[in-house]
């Protein structure tokens, strides 16, 4: 039915099956949309947030998707600026994943603010001292860059490409992509960093507060670093999931191995930096405010030292060791386990820097604040996931996302006949 739109030389499932899955995922999306509309029309009383938990699940989701979407800027930097040519075979998918992550982040922010119609005040009445101002500006600009990077992909659709104007536009956009990749890397450095600075500048919150250099707390650099490490891991993970669902190889293993190796070294160095940061914070910064390290990890039903071990050892040291060794990368099981752990590590880190910060009591006569999200918060957090799956389904079906797909398919068929 839609075969004229499908890229040449590749196979796709039947249109009926495709639509059926769109409907299934669309139902989840609709659930999220209902929750989103409830929040917009009835207000944030639909959530379980409260005056102690002003920042909650959405801000965590926001920080997490932005970190995981970091695969787009870092892969783009490696491909276009540093010149790792093999990565051209995965950059399209990295851009698509980044586009989904960043559009999701903006949507979540639009739901999260109490007066959505005043969202533009952040630009109009901008306070240059606020980390959130920098986040808003860089995030919006980088989303524009990602859109520009995604457009040539859309233009490469078989039917659109037949129009000479679009064909030439796509070709020319590819030619200047290095400029956008460099701009994207620059913008990402700042907004990933500013997101790291967002909790760390809160000097009234000793659990979050970090010292730093000039106006930038250490987490400014750590967040950028971890996004550059875990973003590509997320790209690898989503590629692997896509390959499993489509039951075909879409990207050659050498490309995955190269990206995994770079991500591994980024993760390893990040983990060392994170350990140093945690050590200094636990022994110098926090005690200066009158807090023992264990004050942050005791007398509550959830947060114990286990979360630090999970984040740094299980999701930092272990995946780093796997990814920086050739043996580790060669084993499919270890490779996927490592990228999964790295992705989990970024999510745990963002959780700690948002939700645990809110949970820790600062006044001596207050106790820990615990929180569980309402169904509206859960639904609106799942909404971007459903939206992302649908966008991937449509893009995979109609756009040449994976340049190596056709030759890998041919090789597979040839080997079957041999």
């Amino acid at each position: 039915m839609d075969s004229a739109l499908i890229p040449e030389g590749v196979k796709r499932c039947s249109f009926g099956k495709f639509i059926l899955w769109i409907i299934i995922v669309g139902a989840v999306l609709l659930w999220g949309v209902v929750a989103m509309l409830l929040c917009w029309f009835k207000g944030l009383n639909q959530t379980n947030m409260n005056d102690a938990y002003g920042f909650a699940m959405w801000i965590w989701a926001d920080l997490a998707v932005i970190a995981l979407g970091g695969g787009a800027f870092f892969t783009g930097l490696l491909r276009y600026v540093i010149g790792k040519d093999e990565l051209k075979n995965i950059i399209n998918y990295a851009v698509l994943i980044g586009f989904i992550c960043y559009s999701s982040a903006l949507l979540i922010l639009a739901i999260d603010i109490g007066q959505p119609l005043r969202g533009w005040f952040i630009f109009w009445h901008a306070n240059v001292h606020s980390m959130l101002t920098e986040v808003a500006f860089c995030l919006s600009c980088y989303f524009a860059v990602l859109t520009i990077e995604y457009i040539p992909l859309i233009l490469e659709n078989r039917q659109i490409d037949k129009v000479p104007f679009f064909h030439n536009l796509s070709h020319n956009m590819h030619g200047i992509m290095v400029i956008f990749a460099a701009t994207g890397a620059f913008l990402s450095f700042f907004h990933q960093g500013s997101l790291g600075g967002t909790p760390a500048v809160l000097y009234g919150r000793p659990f979050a507060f970090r010292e730093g250099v000039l106006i930038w707390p250490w987490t400014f650099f750590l967040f950028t670093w971890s996004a550059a490490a875990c973003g590509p891991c997320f790209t690898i993970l989503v590629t692997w999931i896509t390959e499993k669902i489509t039951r075909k190889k879409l990207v050659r293993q050498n490309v995955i191995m190269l990206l995994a190796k770079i991500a591994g070294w980024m993760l390893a160095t990040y983990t060392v930096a994170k350990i140093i940061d945690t050590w200094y914070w636990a022994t110098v910064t926090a005690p200066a405010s009158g807090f023992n390290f264990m004050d942050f990890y005791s007398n509550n039903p959830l947060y114990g030292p286990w979360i630090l071990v999970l984040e740094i050892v299980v999701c930092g040291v272990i995946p780093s060791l796997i990814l920086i060794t050739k043996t580790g990368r060669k084993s499919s099981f270890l490779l996927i386990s490592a990228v999964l752990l790295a992705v989990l590590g970024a999510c745990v880190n963002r959780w700690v820097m948002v939700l645990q910060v809110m949970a820790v009591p600062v006044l001596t006569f207050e106790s820990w604040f615990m929180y569980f999200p309402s169904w509206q918060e859960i639904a609106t957090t799942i909404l971007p996931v459903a939206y992302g799956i649908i966008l991937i389904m449509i893009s995979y079906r109609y756009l040449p996302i994976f340049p190596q797909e056709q030759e890998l398919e041919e090789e597979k068929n040839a080997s079957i006949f041999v």
Partner: protein
Amino acid sequence: MKEEHKHGKASKFGMVIDLDKCTGCGSCMVACMSENNVPFKKDETNKLDSITWLRIYKLTNGKKFPETDICYIPRPCMQCEGDHGHSPCVSVCPATATDYNHETGIVSQIYTRCFGCRYCMAACPYHARYFNWWDPVWPDGMEKYLSPNVSPRMRGVVEKCSFCFHRYQLAKNKAYAQGRRELKEDEYQTACTQACPAGAITFGDLNNSHHAVYKLVKPDNKHGGRPRNPNAFRLLERLGTNPKVYYLSSREWVRRAGDNYIKDEVKKEHH
């Protein structure tokens, strides 16, 4: 008006609460809510989503009878100065919806500019900032009794204690009309100060050595206003927020409850 301020000496309005006098009666809370049109819900049992610009905490020394002792701590907004006006909440607001007034030392909240990101709430260690989770709903006829000097707030914005700033404005207007630049001590007093039956709350200009607040705490303005009075303390002094709300207590355990100390650490008195 602005020009005139430039020539005048800047004020630093602050509050001193004597915890040995406070009975925890809650008159200050009621006066505050009434004065500032603070909205309320039918069910106010959940203190985590109800708005109380001034909230009273009950503390205990944790000892058994007969040594047991309690203390009530009224907690308005601390109007933190931080480092030269770099208060925890003001610097983080992305839309400049909260501001530090260097003429009065009061941290303002501009309701019509706030878009409800709640970053300021995350920044405040005192939980002195409140979000309007609901639109205010007044019982039938009560809207006629709202204060015309304070704008009610809408759903989706943050609000907090303003040290009854509208009273400052009214007092200033009156002084100008009478050809005066300076306010007398009793001309500008907050609602909670006047409502306290025990006289536990004192309000005035911390920069004016004739004012009672100055005499009570003897602020060391060269060191962020740290109190010289050994019985005076501020909440979370060590964080460097430099609040303008001081507490007085003759009881050591109460003073110690004002801040965090690592185990076996001896409290350093700032005098």
